[in-house]
């Protein structure tokens, strides 16, 4: 039963990709649709992305952080002769910045990953860095690929893009040169997707969006790589179009082919969907209170903006109830007569 459901989920995500591809093919075949896509939809997509992304970030950012709840993963700063761990248990802002940099650039927490297994009736914890390795590889490659695309959006091309591209292709395999990041991006995607499909526990908890997100990025990558290596397109036409967007004088590109429209459609779906999806983790990670707060709770008071009043039991009420036995036990009391707490309440 669950196997069938899981297969349907995976299949649905492939179908969704196929639908987008077909739509792209249809658009490529129709001159009007091409105009609408490149001149109107492009701006709408960008607006949806920008507004959606900013809205989500602002929504998180304006939510109060009532308590300082860092997860400490190293020694606290306490006595001067005990060596504190400023990165895993930051006491100040510098440490927090360091910790966050580790999380964002090196996936520090994921690097801790281990795998628990029962061996001969006891759990053992093996090292398991594959997710970290491929995860990091995927994310870094994706970032570099996006940066390389700046050559389509700047004129003259910003200098570092050229350097980046030649560095990326320094292996000089094939013509045009194969980019390492392209290879790594696809390798990362294959790992992440296969892991989801093959590990039963992961398949059990995966949702449609989990598969769809990976397939969508993979579709962008595959169409892009195909255009570079197998079905070359006229890059001048594309650059004319992209620069048209940037300069707010959109033009319809000349002959670019189905593959390009597919690439474009996948990218647009990705960008427009991103603010509504789990891919927002790219922004959310910066705001995670267990990571971006210093563990200096007892040294600096954290203020809760909505600190709600609660019902409390005062000492007077307490003594009122237990005064007799306190006196009997020889425990000091504030007052020897009853009724004071009552009076207090009336005031």
């Amino acid at each position, binding site marked *: *039963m*669950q196997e069938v*459901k899981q297969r349907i989920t995976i299949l649905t995500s492939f179908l969704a990709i196929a639908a987008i591809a077909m739509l792209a093919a249809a658009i490529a075949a129709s001159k009007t649709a091409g105009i609408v896509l490149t001149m109107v939809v492009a701006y709408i997509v960008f607006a949806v992305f920008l507004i959606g992304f900013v809205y989500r970030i602002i*929504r998180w950012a304006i*939510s*109060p952080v*009532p*308590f300082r*709840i860092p*997860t*400490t993963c190293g020694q*606290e700063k*306490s*006595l001067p002769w005990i060596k*504190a761990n400023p990165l*895993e*248990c930051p006491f100040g802002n510098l440490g927090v910045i360091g910790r966050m940099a580790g999380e964002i650039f090196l996936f520090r*927490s994921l690097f801790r990953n*281990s795998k628990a297994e*029962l061996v001969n*009736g*006891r*759990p053992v*914890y093996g090292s398991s860095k594959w*997710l970290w390795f491929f*995860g990091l590889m995927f994310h870094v490659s994706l970032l570099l690929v996006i940066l390389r695309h700046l050559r389509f959006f700047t004129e003259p091309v910003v200098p570092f893009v050229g350097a980046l591209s030649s560095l990326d292709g320094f292996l000089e395999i094939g013509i045009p040169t194969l980019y390492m990041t392209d290879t790594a991006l696809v390798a990362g995607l294959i790992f992440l997707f296969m892991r989801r499909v093959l590990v039963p*526990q*992961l398949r*059990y908890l995966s*949702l449609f*969006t*989990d598969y769809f997100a990976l397939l969508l990025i993979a579709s962008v990558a595959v169409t892009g790589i195909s255009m570079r290596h197998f079905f070359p397109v006229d890059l001048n036409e594309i650059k004319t179009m992209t620069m048209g967007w940037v300069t707010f004088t959109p033009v319809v590109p000349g002959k670019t082919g189905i593959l390009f429209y597919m690439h474009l459609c996948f990218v647009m779906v990705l960008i427009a969907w991103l603010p*509504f*999806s*789990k891919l927002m*983790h790219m922004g*959310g990670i910066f*705001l*995670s209170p*267990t*990571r971006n707060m210093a563990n*200096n*709770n*007892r040294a*600096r*008071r954290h*203020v*809760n903006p*909505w*600190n*709600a009043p*609660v019902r*409390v039991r005062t*000492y007077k009420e307490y003594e009122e109830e*237990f005064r007799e036995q*306190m006196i009997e*036990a*020889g*425990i*000091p009391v504030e007052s020897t007569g009853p009724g004071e707490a009552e009076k207090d309440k009336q005031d």
Partner: protein
Amino acid sequence: MSSLKISQPDELIRISYETPKTAWMDTPTVFRPGTWSYAAAPKNLSYLGLPNPRQWQPSDEDWKLPDNWRQIIIDGMKERLEKYRSFRLFMDICVRCGACADKCHFYIGTGDPKNMPVLRAELIRSVYRRYFTTVGRCFGALAGARDLTIDVLKEWFYYFYQCTECRRCSVFCPYGIDQAEITMIGRELLNLVGCNINWVIEPVANCYRTGNHLGIQPGGIKDMLEFLAEDIFDRTGVKVNVPINKKGADILFVAPSGDYFADPGTYTCMGYLMLFHEIGLDYTFSTYASEGGNFGLFASHDLMKSINYKIYAEPRRLGVRWILGGECGHMWRVVHQYMDTMNGPADFLEEPVSPITGTLFENARSTKMVHITEFTADLIRNGKLNLDPRRNDHIKLTFHDSCNPARAMGLFEEPRYIIRNTCNNFYEMAEDTIREKTFCCGAGAGLGNDENIEMRMRGGMPRAMAVRDVVKKHGVNRLGCICAIDRATLTTLMDYWVPGVNVMGVHELLGNALVMKGENERTTDLRGEPLEGC
């Protein structure tokens, strides 16, 4: 319900990690005896003014919920999404990478996929998507959204009371998503419709009324402490004072009530009393603030704040300089991460300075509450204590980092420094099971009751097995800790998985080793067990 049958360890350890035949949203929750906790008694709910007091049990078909329970929960979620960035963010950004899955002791101990932190969170996330996100409203199940039904509520209850808020998953999560935070909010929501467990609510009600979870009244507290003082006299020949509700003392000492109530916590408490006597500390216990622990943490932020109030109200009344806190795990989560924010500022207290060494505890300059291992480590470092670790030579110790001091404070070296100075035989457990990666005792967050025994033994299994390894390797016979819940529950856990290992607090170790002025020659340790070579 101590008659509850639980399988033998060699049977319980046969855990299957195979996924169920049905998808998780279609898998019904079964309230199997031994894996859940009794519902809160109506008298406790009434006393605290909490909603929907009634007689019911989770195993009942009808939970006797208010007619508009669904609306209450949805409104409660809305309110909390607006009040807690953590909650909103953790609902939104999980990518279900699964790194947290096998980090949870309940998952390792049960193989139940809903005990993977990611899926435990999805229980509530699916409802969040349905009612609070556009995508969820439009695409329903395809977007991982589902309606809030009574079965979902029951599932929440079962699994949010199968999480000990230990935060181990949050160490491994690439975004720091903290299941403890989600469980806390989940339990708060359940509380809104009167679905809570007695083992949490009764201690809270007790604490509200008597100042401590166990409901011990002032006379009883005095009796117990004086009884411990007599025991100290028996063992050492030294008469120690037990100051109670003393105005104008330098320091208010707050311990978890478990420490003066029952073995083996009492030995730790004897260690405190001996230490304070030996250094001539001007301090006082309080019967009103007679509980360091805070089971409110396991019910709602409001209840946490409510019973934490005394920890600041009492030192103000007594006019002490600052507060010293005993060995207790979740107590320190509250003291360290919540107290100052909730009930501070403590501007009526002074910045904590050790009256013995003159050390200023800079890390506690705002909250003005110092952890006893920080205090004692400083004493030892400054040579203020005369210690004879040979008196602990009959003990082969390993140390369990309690979840909260580990992952909410980073208190690792202070207890170890005390241990190394008081004990010659100390062996660490495997690296994946200590410090920030420490495994929960399996019974924190209010789950340490008898009716939940099977789940406790399952959840504590990873901890117990790590102990068993050092028992086999080094002949360890004692498990040290700095937590009162640990001292109570690890004892049961050891008896089940690793018989022969006893549990002790770090200050019991100190009490054994502490050479006191005018003491008789010791022939036994604080438990009355003969010392090696005597």
